[in-house]
């Protein structure tokens, strides 16, 4: 079973992502900020990571940078409520950038796509 780490500070959204990904048949680990997110990454070695940008303690971009320094391969989806973050080159280190939406279809497709891509 593929392991996915969800790093998101807003609890209802975190739960929504978790519930939806479990329904898709993944094992889901969650973290409420960047610091916990990094600990979880080290501990569980997930197959894919999704990260929110605006978070307390350590934001998503810092976490992305920190993970990429250690692991250049693990697929990372970065998402935010802010569309303009695509302009920030720090987000280019991620494999995918998504704007937050209540419709998770695109998100789930990208997760599947990236995991399959890694498989091959």
């Amino acid at each position, binding site marked *: 079973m593929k392991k996915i780490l969800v790093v998101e500070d*807003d*609890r*209802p959204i975190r*739960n*929504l992502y978790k*519930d939806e990904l479990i329904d898709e048949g993944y094992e889901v680990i969650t973290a409420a900020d960047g610091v916990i997110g990094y600990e979880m990454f080290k501990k569980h070695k997930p197959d894919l990571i999704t990260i929110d940008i605006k978070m307390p303690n350590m934001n998503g971009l810092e976490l992305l940078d920190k993970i990429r320094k250690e692991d250049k391969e693990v697929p990372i989806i970065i998402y935010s409520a802010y569309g303009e973050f695509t302009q920030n080159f720090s987000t280019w280190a991620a494999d995918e950038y998504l704007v*937050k939406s*209540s419709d*998770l279809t695109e998100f789930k497709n990208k997760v599947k796509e990236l995991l399959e891509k890694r498989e091959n």
Partner: protein
Amino acid sequence: MSDEDIKENYKDLVRQYNILNQISKTVASTLDLNKILKIILTGVTFGDGFGFNRAFLFLIDRHQKNLIGRIAIGPASEEEAWKVWGEIQHTNYSLEEYLNSEKFLNEPSTSVLDEKIRQVIIHLDEKKVLWQCLEDGVPRNVNLINYYQDQNFNSNKNPENTFDSDLDLENGKSDVSCQPTPEKPYCYIYDKNLIEPELLEYIDYPKFCIIPLISRTIKVGILIVDNKYNKRDITDDDIKFLLMLGQFAASSIRNTIIYNDLKDSLAALEKLNMKLDYLREYNEKIIESIPVSILVIDKYFKVTLCNENCSKIMRAQKNQIIGRSIDTHSIFIDGADLVEEIKKVMDENKSEGFHKVNIKMDGRKTEEIYDVILTPFKFFKDTPEGVVLIIEDITATVKLKKELSEAKKLSELGKLSATIAHEIRNPLIAIGGYAIRLKRKYTQNQEIDPEAIDIIINEVSRLETIVNEILDYAADRKLEFTKVDLSSLMKECINLAEISAEQNDISIDFSCGCGILGDCELFVTGDYNKLKQAFLNIINNAVEASKKRSKVTVLIQTEDNYENIMIKVHNYGYLGSEEIKHNIFLPFYTTKDRGTGLGLTITKKIIEQHNGSIGVESSVENGTTFTIKLPLLKQEQN
């Protein structure tokens, strides 16, 4: 003396008077000093005139210390002398005719003698003859023939060269002083040592006559004549006439010099005048160019200066304002009478300023807005000569500032809208996401997770809270002010807060340090419900920031000599950082998991609506204290 002699003498006299007359007539026709000098010297040397071989003229300098060689007429050598005389005889001119002839008027003075004299400067020495001569006004007839023969005086160094001198040795004195008589109005000089060496070197001939040129008492210069070439002796009559000519020449020269000086002074004055005109115009241009109105009023309240801008404000021509008393106009600056203000500035010797004011001019209020400054101006220390009034039209600036502040408000509104949009986005995503999920589960007949429904309900309630608080913050609801008993209001708030505090075993202490006011009757004027909302926010915040089993303290006390009430709400938690402290009152700034970030913003707004202030101090050691200051309702107002 025979009849013939007398007749001859008489004829000579007539001739010489005639010459004087001709010279004076020609001199009178000009004001050119060089020409006058040339006429005089020509008259002296002209064959038809006095007929001296050579004539020299020196003028005294401004400091009366030196004689400066100015003009010389005569041949430079014996050959030249004969040639010149031949020519003149040939033309047969009379002196007057010659002086008016083309030859005289246009002939440039290029003689060697003339060129040399301009380089001669004779220093006047009290012990020497030229100085003495100018002092006593008596001509000197110089005869140094003895030196000439004995000591090779002449540069010709020709011992054969003899002179038919009538050396008056018995009268000869080696002293510069002299007592002239009407018959013999001059003195002899035989002593070479009495003569200035520069002169001797230049003249280079032992017999010559020195005529002082004195106009009234003013020394003008020296005229020297000799007969170097025909060697004719200078007679008593010669000297008498030279003396007359000398007096005439002196006054002509002096008048001309004065005239020329005057002319120069006039020209200089004219130039100065032009410069003054220019300066006046320059200053005027500056005063007219600066974009402020200037009015200068002297100590008698008379207007001495008014620029165009000012005359526009006063709606009068400049010439109707300047020179008249300022109280002919009724001018009020921000309601203050200008005349009174001028008096005040003069009396106190201190500037006065008015910012953003209207001016009422002769009963008419201007539409523009002005800055006005009254400044005393002084020529001497501490005594104002008048007042300078500077009026600046700031209407455009004020308008611009207003526009700027509106633009700023709009930009703040823009930022606020973006923040609000972002704040409501997360709950919307969660609600939408779970709604989609529930629909899918429902249509697929799968089990519905009740937790998902809870999340939707909670998030909707969160949205409601946010929207209510925004509406509350944005609504400009009119406050209903009543007399509010602060300590009983505070007790009510604490009772409400204690419900949640007790769940975490947090106690709330309340004390009222009323000082001399006694039984804690502290009143403010305020909106009861709004103040309750504000205080409850602060107390609830303090409870939420406290650890379990800790304490929140609320203290009310009077401040600033019973002018204000100070409310302090303390807890032992630390805010976290200086940044949090700095931003804590900003909208949507929150450190709490489920806060909207509007509570403290609303509290601050309410306190400010009550003319109060709110601040926060926080440290790890002392915890956090919010301090609210409100104006106390005075007892007499109760």
